[in-house]
């Protein structure tokens, strides 16, 4: 199994990578710190799993060389599991990339990272409901302090291929439900 860490620039993928693999790739607070991919290894249930820190990208339609590296990496790793790292305070735009990747049929786990910052900004995310709609594991994390990382790792094996039709139906169904109430 191979795990790709994907997401927008500056959401904490490299912090994730260092936490997961014990590596020391550069972490900084500006978008575009990681410009090339780095591979490392982690253990899940006695199995050695390869993890790749992929440069940040906004979509699968690359706008610069670093994004090209990211998209190429994804396309070349057909059997990879994607850990999609999302900035919890900017969920909408991050979901765009997550959906795009799911549409290509990759199994995914979503990490709602920077959970503390969303909390500071008074943004509440209904994690269970989000998981219900998307049909893939969704977990709040704070990579810099390590919170939620263990839970995330324990659920990587549950990664599922997103079913877009199902997601469409879920999103609509639950919304109607909410209207009726």
């Amino acid at each position, binding site marked *: 199994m191979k795990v790709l860490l994907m997401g927008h620039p500056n959401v904490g993928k490299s912090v994730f990578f260092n936490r997961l693999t014990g590596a020391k790739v550069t972490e900084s607070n500006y978008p575009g710190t990681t410009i090339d991919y780095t591979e490392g290894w982690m253990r899940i249930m006695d199995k050695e799993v390869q993890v790749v820190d992929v440069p940040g990208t906004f979509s699968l339609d690359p706008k610069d060389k670093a994004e090209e590296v990211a998209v190429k990496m994804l396309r070349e790793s057909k059997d990879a599991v994607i850990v999609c790292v999302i900035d919890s305070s900017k969920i909408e735009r991050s979901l765009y990339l997550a959906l795009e990747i799911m*549409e290509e049929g990759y199994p995914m786990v979503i990490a709602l990272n920077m959970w503390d910052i969303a909390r500071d900004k008074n*943004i*509440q995310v209904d994690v269970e409901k989000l998981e219900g709609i998307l049909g893939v594991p969704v977990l709040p994390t704070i990579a810099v302090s390590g919170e939620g990382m263990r839970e995330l790792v324990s659920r990587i094996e549950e990664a599922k291929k997103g079913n877009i039709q199902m997601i469409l139906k879920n999103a609509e169904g639950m919304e109607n439900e909410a209207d009726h109430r």
Partner: protein
Amino acid sequence: MKLTIDERWELIDRISRQTVAFGGYKHTLKDAIGDLTVKPLTGIPIALTVLYGFWSFFCSFAGFFTDGFMVKIFDDHWLPWLMEVFPDPDGWLFKIFVGEYGAESCFEAFGVLTSGLFVAVGVVLPAIVAFYLFLIVMEDTGYLPRLAVLIDTLLHKIGLHGFAVVPMILSLGCNVPGVTATRNLETEKQRFMMIALLSVFIPCGAQLGVMLELVPEYVGWIMIFLIMGMFVFGFILNKLIPGRAPEILMDVPPYRKPRWRNVGNKLWMRTSSFFTTAIPFVLLGVVLVNLMYLTGMMDRLATVFSPLLTGYFGVPEETVAPLVAGFLRKDLAIFQLASMEMTAGQLITSIVLISLYFPCIATFAMIIREGWSSGWKGVLKYLAGSLLVLGFVVFVWVGVLRIILMIMGVD
């Protein structure tokens, strides 16, 4: 199943309506500071202050360690000890490893174990540590993207955009990561321009460290002259090279408190990579230069290039030696000027000449690697292009410098 862009956004709208709730939000002190540092009226003075602070920190930190400790250790203890214990002062080995017999400082001796180690460990190491310490704090707080926003308008005049400050500032530490950081620029035109400009105009931290030790009174002026050159030639290149320089939307992350663990890690990684990738080249450079002197090759080269060096650039023909070393390491090249007899004007000119001319071998290799991502043609384009820019710049900008020095009456 694939969605269209609109369908995707519509779906996201649906999902987030049900799962995300935005509570009231009060602006905090962090936001206030964030605003102040990004609005031009307050942001530009703050940016100037920060950059000046960076410079002062760099100078005083590096100076403190080099002058306060390293010079004393190397000149008072290491050098005399080596002179005493190293056998056969007339032999080649002595000349290569210790250098001139009887030299009183590591500036003059020019052996691998004397000057070589002194440049690498005594002068450049403190400079590198100082530079990265400050840079890492800027990186981790989130100040860099704000600097990018502030300088955006100015950089658009030369066909780049604000984010180009990232490769520029990284290059001040070392041109190699600077070249790779250009991957964040959008068009091929911008990447090429940035690579050419930074490899020609931006001196690396190691080089700055030596300049600071050698000519502390001129470093500021030389820097201003180099940066001016970058803008002048950026402006020209922007007109000549076809391609676009699109506007971009840039994310400005919130300020964060640096995590000291991360600061320590990064400082350690960057310093240790300096040890493994830079120091061998410095030492190798000393060997090469000494061998060329011993075999008489250097003198022959000096005679060949004399018309160009003394005639056009107005520097002594012996400058050929630092120019040879400059292929390997610019810091070593500048260091070699220390033991030469020169007027102030010649010293300034030769420092600028060394700064502008050929990027060091590591940067050169990186430019080839970056070009390689578009195959042979890419390599050819990047190399031929940068060399063309380089040749043009060296002749024009050093020529301009000579005229300026002449007008100012500097000998």
